[in-house]
């Protein structure tokens, strides 16, 4: 697809690969982070009876760009006692972790970084990069708040991967594929083909699956929310307790890397949730391009729906963040181990039985 097209155009697979790898970064993640930061500020502001940024540009639309420029100019403050190599690598590694996940996320039916058959497993794997980098950041900062934040974060991420994975396994048992592209392709057509509504086909199993799929979607949404450290699961950052958690000591562009990675992560998990349960890039109502017979329009429509669904889930994440208080760290673990995992297991069992029958 994009890669094949590029390599035929350029005639060199390596360059084509590099371009292909950079495309989502420059075309998607960076612009998205810019928009999402502004969106967060505006969403929070309007939820709190404020206006948010208003001075830079019309209703503050270039506020984020101004912020990025400011962050570029900032002095990179580093205390003498930090473990320098780890301290420098950690923000890069965080970003790699969240960026690598985009490689297997299908933006449209034509545009996916790599057509991995193990797509979803790969994404869950690389998202563990986050744990390593957060631990690195917390440990190398030589700051007790950072260390506490990193410990909390590691425990949280490791725990919440389990319910995510269980739900993913549930989906694999239903669909028989681990490739997100295949999964999205399966949910083509109309919204009643989405996995949340039992997947494609029209039989009794589909209707029996619906409640379990909804439970699965809720579980996966909650646990991915926890994996990206958003409120009510932001105990690693817990600004009222741990100042800023694991990135307390970071400033300037290194801080911006964490920040960028957070927003990239937010979108990544939203994309995963939508790919798993809400049809990924598929339009809920069929395509205008097919209707008009303009085939090149379809990928753009798909990109539109993909972005829209992603943003919708990002919006829900923001909505929760500005509404809910924060859980305590032991309650966080209780929620995961005592509620989500048993429910996810039961769900898996029942869905498995349904599929076998």
């Amino acid at each position, binding site marked *: 697809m994009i890669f094949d097209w590029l390599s035929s155009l350029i005639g060199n697979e390596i360059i084509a690969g590099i371009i292909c790898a950079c495309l989502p970064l420059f075309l998607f993640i960076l612009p998205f982070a810019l928009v999402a930061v502004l969106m967060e500020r505006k969403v929070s502001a309007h*939820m*709190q009876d404020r206006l948010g940024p208003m001075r830079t540009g019309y209703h503050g639309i270039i506020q984020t760009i101004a912020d990025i420029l400011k962050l570029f100019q900032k002095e990179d403050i580093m205390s003498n006692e930090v473990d320098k190599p780890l301290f420098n690598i950690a923000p890069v590694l965080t970003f790699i972790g969240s960026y690598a996940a985009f490689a297997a996320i299908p933006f449209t039916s034509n545009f996916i970084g790599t057509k991995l058959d193990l797509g979803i497993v790969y994404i869950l794997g690389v998202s563990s990069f986050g744990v390593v980098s957060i631990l690195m950041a917390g440990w190398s900062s030589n700051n007790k708040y950072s260390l506490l934040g990193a410990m909390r974060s590691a425990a949280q991420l490791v725990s919440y991967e389990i319910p995510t994975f269980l739900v993913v396994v549930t989906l694999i048992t239903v669909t028989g594929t681990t490739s997100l592209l295949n999964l999205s392709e399966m949910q083509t057509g109309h919204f009643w083909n989405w996995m949340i509504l039992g997947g494609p086909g029209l039989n009794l199993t589909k209707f029996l699956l619906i409640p379990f799929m909804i439970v699965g979607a809720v579980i996966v949404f909650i646990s991915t929310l926890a994996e990206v450290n958003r409120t009510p699961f932001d*105990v690693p950052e817990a600004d009222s307790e741990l100042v800023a958690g694991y990135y307390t000591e970071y400033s300037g562009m290194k801080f911006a890397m964490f920040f960028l990675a957070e927003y990239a992560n937010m979108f990544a998990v939203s994309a995963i949730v939508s790919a798993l349960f809400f049809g990924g890039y598929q339009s809920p109502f069929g395509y205008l391009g097919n209707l008009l017979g303009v085939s090149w329009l379809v990928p753009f429509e798909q990109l539109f729906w993909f972005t829209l669904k992603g943003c919708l889930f990002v919006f829900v994440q923001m909505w929760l963040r500005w509404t*809910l208080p924060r859980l305590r760290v032991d309650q966080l673990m209780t929620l995961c181990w005592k509620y989500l995992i048993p429910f996810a297991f039961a769900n898996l069992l029942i869905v498995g039985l349904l599929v076998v029958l």
Partner: protein
Amino acid sequence: MALKTEEMVLNMGPQHPSTHGVLRLELELEGELVLNVRPHLGYLHRCFEKHCEAMTYPQVIPYVDRLDYLAAMSNELTYAITCEKLMNIQVPERVEYIRVIMVELQRIASHLVALGTFGLDIGAFTPFLYCFIDREKILSLFELTCGARMLYNYIWIGGLSHDLHPDFIRLAKEFVQYFKPHVAELNNLLSYNKIFIERTANVGVLPLEAAINYNITGPSLRGSGIKWDLRKNDPYSIYDKFDFDIPVGKGTFGQVGDCWDRYFVRVVEMEQSLRIIEQALEQIPEGDVTSALPKRVKPPEGTVYARTENPKGELGFFIVSNGSLNPYRVKVKPPSFVNLTVLGELCKGCFISDVIAILGSIDIVMGEVDR
């Protein structure tokens, strides 16, 4: 071979988002568990008591404002009452009414900050701003009255610095009507939120026995389930003329005296303050507010202790007068200071997050703790 472990000492503050000012807490931690808390004070010490000895009695009032800067009116009232007791001044009825209205508005404003920042400590950002929007309206009323939004110098010994603005009564009534539904909104958004209850119920339980022995006062004492409010139990000013209830902690979601109880007492107190304000606005008489102002404050020799129910608790002034124009000794009984003494006891064996919750629920202002 077992790994060698040791407690980690975490220095929380004096610069920290949620120590409510420049309080420094030395936490001994075992992982997330807090073994011991040692508060260190004095970062905001401004020598209030030493200053007072060099001032005349009326000159102390602006300094009094800066004790509990979130409830400056209440501080002024307490100081004025103490000096009036020393001088044996009867203030006109209109003055009493205006004072009560101001102090109750101030109580709402102070509780709004307490509740908002408590929510913020728990991680809920939005209620904090909702509270501040409402507080702004009260501050605007104060601004209308005396030109200042935080530190008023409005209640003077024997009277007030100004009479009310002609629009004040109307605007205050509008505010009361405006604010009533907002308490319910705060309840829906924060008080009955499941996560909020999880975080605060059964956390930092303060038994009544201990609360009394520590002389905890104000909402924190009432949260432990005793109806003790100086407005009812030791009435000053004209509080015996009004009809209002004293809310107490009932242990709705956990044990009596937990953080949620202390929090909710404040919520209900705001409603009761609205009742007092409504009644006072209806009954306020006409009159001159400056008629009882003494030309010169020169009280007789003696010691006096007078106290009022501040938003934070019982605020008292112990004044030793030697018959001159300057107070010989002014000692404050600061509610925040006394309430803070119990922190070490409450925090033993809880989580770091709970320390923040407990500190937020006893609602201290460092200006008053350090003086």
